[in-house]
């Protein structure tokens, strides 16, 4: 579903935001991208939904080579990918309904379809009672739910989420994670960037890619990779 081969991304100068990253996520995978701040997690997600272009390497999303994708093809690729942004990117002065419906509006769907679909998605994220509320009046957790609802409204095959639980308390974090798991259970590939390791442990069977200063330092099944990392950290502390 998502394939990255020796991908580099540089923002001018010598320093690479991503350096020789090779990574894959198959259909129905739950993939965590983790690492400290500035490791390149957000950049990686941006490359996948064409907000940025790789400096070098090959990226394939659903069989489409992004390096060869024309500008006119980008919107159609984005319709296959739902994105939950770190800062939500909601229209505060618009209602929950309008925000979620926007994804369907831009594809030119008829109004009746949009109404039906948005209500269905709002039920999924538990916001059906708040469809007419302005987004700016919602709590952080609720806003995150709206962002997730918008991301999945158009039935994407991939959902990308950038630190979706960054500013939320533990209880809400678990609720949001459960939402992503539900989305994943329905067959959607989920790629979730987080620096929260606890989150990774809560999704059995997930894959993980660990980034450090733009390099992929470990990748594989989350449980194994995290166990190896922990062992490494313990041994390095022992050496010290």
């Amino acid at each position, binding site marked *: 579903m998502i394939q990255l081969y020796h991908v580099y991304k540089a923002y001018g100068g010598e320093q690479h935001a991503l350096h020789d990253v090779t990574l894959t996520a198959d259909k129905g995978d739950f993939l965590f991208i983790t690492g400290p701040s500035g490791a390149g997690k957000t950049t990686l997600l941006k490359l996948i939904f064409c907000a940025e272009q790789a400096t070098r390497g090959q990226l394939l999303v659903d069989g489409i080579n992004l390096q060869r994708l024309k500008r*006119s093809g980008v*919107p159609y690729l*984005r319709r296959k990918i739902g994105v939950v942004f770190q800062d939500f990117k909601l*229209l505060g002065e618009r209602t929950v309904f309008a925000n979620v419906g926007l*994804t369907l509006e*831009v*594809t030119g769907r008829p109004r009746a379809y949009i109404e039906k679909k948005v209500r269905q998605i709002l039920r999924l994220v538990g916001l059906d009672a708040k469809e007419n509320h302005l987004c700016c009046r919602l709590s952080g957790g609720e806003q995150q739910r709206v962002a997730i609802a918008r991301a999945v409204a*158009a039935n994407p095959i991939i959902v990308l989420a950038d630190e979706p639980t960054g500013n939320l308390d533990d209880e809400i974090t678990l609720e949001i994670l459960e939402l992503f798991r539900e989305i994943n259970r329905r067959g959607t590939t989920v790629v979730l960037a987080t620096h929260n390791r606890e989150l990774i442990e809560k999704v059995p069977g997930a894959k993980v890619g660990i980034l450090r200063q733009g390099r992929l330092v470990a990748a594989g099944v989350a449980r194994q990779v995290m166990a190896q990392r922990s062992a490494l950290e313990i041994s390095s502390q022992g050496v010290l």
Partner: protein
Amino acid sequence: MRIGLLVYFLRKALENIWTNPFLSLVTLSTIAISMLILGLFSLIYLNVQQSLHQMGDELQITAYLQETISSEQAEVLRSKVADWPEVEGITYISKEQALARFRSQLREYAGILEGLKENPLPASLELTLMPQYGRSGNIKELSTRLGRLSGVAEVQYGRKWMAKLRVFVEVMKLVGITVGGLLLIATIFVISNTIKLTFYSRREELEIMRLVGATDFFIKAPFLIEGLLHGLGGALLAAGGLSLLILFLFSHLDLPLRLAVMAGSLPMGQLVAGFLGLGLLLGVLGSMVSLRRFLRP
């Protein structure tokens, strides 16, 4: 394109206009005033030019013949000049006919001829010219050629002010094109600025729309329609204003007879259609100027 989508674009365009009603009003007024000025120039130009055409059609040259010339010689002269390609018609007016015409035309002054022993009016040849020749302005050359013929005493073609009028029309045309061109550029700039401001006020939404898969066309379309609506609205206002102005001018002002007569045959339908077409064009151009800049990758 689906009707539903078109309705959606139209609704969005109206929302844009409604978001900044003052700005929209200023834009509409600017377009209307620019087009009104342009319309006035066009009207005056069309009017005067049409008058000139008519005068050209009626243009006449009179060749007065020498006293000594006989009617047979005059007939030879008439048939010679009648063969010239510029000449549409030619009439020989004898001394007696000239006198009779003078008497009938100027009855109140007819008395001044009573005391004269003989008829002082000369015989003449009256030429009407081919319309295209009459308008070409090369009457002077023809009259000189006519004057060189033996038996012709003097040539008159009168209406020297027509030449002045022609110069005036040419100047008008030049000023109209310059002013009109500048006004049209200014109008495009105003529309483009309005679209730019609307775009700025909605930039967050548009950015999100792009991120969730909106095509450039989907983002542009409501702004293009907004520009079109502004252009069309301004054109309608200008057409209405111009019609009112014409009604006012011809009912309250004492215009020269010819211009007043022309008013009845002004191509108002064409002018309004032209206004609407121009308004649409200006609207699209204005929108495209700003959108091209904003939607650059």
